[in-house]
């Protein structure tokens, strides 16, 4: 079964070299149409991305929310730890409640009037694939008809500390990303802007290789190497599927953890090939694949 992509949008901006984080409050209001108070930057980013995604499409109240992030809301969690341990102050109730990762899911659901299932589900090396896989299984089972799937990576001040957490040097341009897509079962009568035939995980190269060889002809598709895929792997996958078209979608992106959503959006908006094969890997040699078809 292929998921129909009804809408896709993002917020993705670099952080200025002086470390000043862009103001988001007004953008939240513009993208969601509501004023959301006393929320963290992480929640604001989720609201902006999700709001933009749903701006021009009807979103049914029984749409499920599937949300992911590599590091979660580091700003609020670090603040809690600094309060308790460094400053020896009690955390405020609002700060504590906002520290649960599904706070962002809650605010997205509330702002968009959604009341169905609501999950923060992630993994270390390709967070949005975890969200997409769980959404896929729920739609396949007929438990929901539409799903709002997203990932958020936020920055926190001071930037030097954020770099330290990301383990990147001062020459790397740091950014924030909030990528969202509204997907539906193929029976949804609305016109889609693309489809996702599947999101798959493989325990090793042999399993990936067998699947690539056995499932279809990707010769005229784009190969989009994920953030953690080595050049060697990218080359042997390209050779295996017979494509010369490599999609370097991250070339103009600032650095943040979860960029797979950016690849999907860029492919939908900017490319003309019939399909894209996004392949990522982790240090253990496992692979994740997202297929996107026009």
């Amino acid at each position: 079964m292929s998921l129909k992509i009804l809408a896709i949008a993002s917020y993705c901006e670099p952080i200025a070299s002086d470390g000043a984080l862009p103001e988001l409050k007004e953008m939240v209001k513009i993208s969601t149409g509501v004023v959301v108070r006393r929320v963290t930057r992480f929640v604001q980013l989720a609201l902006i991305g999700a709001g933009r995604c749903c701006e021009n499409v009807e979103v049914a109240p029984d749409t499920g929310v599937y949300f992911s992030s590599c590091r979660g809301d580091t700003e609020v969690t670090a603040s809690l730890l600094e309060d308790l341990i460094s400053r020896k102050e009690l955390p405020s109730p609002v700060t504590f409640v906002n520290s649960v990762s599904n706070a962002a899911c809650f605010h997205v659901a509330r702002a968009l009037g959604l009341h169905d299932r609501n999950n923060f589900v992630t993994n270390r090396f390709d967070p949005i694939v975890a969200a997409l896989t769980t959404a896929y299984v729920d739609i396949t089972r007929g438990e929901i008809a539409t799903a709002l799937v997203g990932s958020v990576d936020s920055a926190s001040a001071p930037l030097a500390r954020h770099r330290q957490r990301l383990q990147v040097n001062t020459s790397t341009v740091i950014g924030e990303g909030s990528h969202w897509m509204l997907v539906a079962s193929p029976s949804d009568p609305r016109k889609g802007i693309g489809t996702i035939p599947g999101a798959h995980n493989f325990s090793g190269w042999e399993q990936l290789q067998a699947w690539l060889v056995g499932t279809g002809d990707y010769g005229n598709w784009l190969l989009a190497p994920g953030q953690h895929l080595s050049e060697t792997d990218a080359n042997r996958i390209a050779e295996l599927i017979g494509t010369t078209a490599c999609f370097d979608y991250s070339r103009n992106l600032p650095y943040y953890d979860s960029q797979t959503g950016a690849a999907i959006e860029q492919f939908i908006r900017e490319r003309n090939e019939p399909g894209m094969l996004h392949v990522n890997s982790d240090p253990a040699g496992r692979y994740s694949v997202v297929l996107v078809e026009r």
Partner: protein
Amino acid sequence: MSSAIFLGSGLHTALGVNVADCVAALRGAPPQPGFVSCSMDAGAEAIPYFLLSGLPADEPGARLDEVVFEVIQQALDAAGLSPSQRESLALFVGSSSFEIAGEEYRYRQALNQSSSAIPLAECGMANLAERVRSTLGLRGEDYTFNTACTSSANALWYAGKLIEQDVIEHALILAVEFVNNTTTYGFQGLQLLSPTTMRPFDGERNGLVLGESCAAMVLGKSSGSEGFHLRGGANLCDTYSMSTTREDGSAVVDVLRRALASSRLTPDAIRAIKCHGTATITGDAAEARGMLTTFDQLPPCTSLKPFVGHTLGACGLTELILFCEAVKAGFLPGTEGIAADTDGVGFALNQRPMPVVPGHFMLNYFGFGGNNTSLIVSNMADGVDS
């Protein structure tokens, strides 16, 4: 459709260091909690807490690893998987606080070395999953769930669905919650902690007592036996409030009815209910209203938090293992002296261990962020009259 069957479990709570010890303790009355000392500049304070049995609360990082890998081993041993099945296990981790206890310890130590030390130097939502996966050499996919008190219930539910859909063959579900200052002071700031004991649904309830737990379960595809399996479930988001369920109970009704529908059951088919029961004034009242609306006649209800405390993100799997193992042993746990009559919220909890036969059972969980989950488990095959 085939269902996901529970192949083996591991558990370490305040009640004991393995499943058998924990379940044996459920035959008695709920124990008194211990205490943790949380110290701030204003002075140290003793807070009731159900700490892990037989394990001092020091050196949090080493403590977590010691317990996690021991409990996983219990589950793997009980499941009896082949080496190749073990290697291909998919991993599902559910927790509220993950490794925050270890991070508090690391940050404190680092500050002693340098005033420029930073918190969360090695942060990552899925770091625990990654460490477990790499230590055990697991090659399957991994998922980390963080939906407050429903985290491990949702982890289990999705593991079951991925098995039913043939996406994975076997799953290891891990639930952890360890004592830490962030959670303790956070709940204290919300004025949700009881200064004494936990009395869910009781007229004299005065808040929750936090608890530690590590639980693990191996799930596989049903082979036609009549062991416990996941029959259905539901998760819905109540956007009424970040920290409170809608007070009229309507959000509870919605998720309970959805879980029953997904299990193709009517309310009268439920043999017993494991309530969430946080012993908070508004939370218990809303849960009770929801249950009394859903069920014309409530089946026997039990609450396990008086035994192990509120283990937050770990309560989903922890309480499911305790409940199912007690039922397998032939009894429904009782909370003698807690919610003994209907004065508190309109229904009473089961008071003493009560004989119970195979059937369909409902387990409910309600979390911050309006995340509500209801699971239906069964140890009776389809087509057998309940």
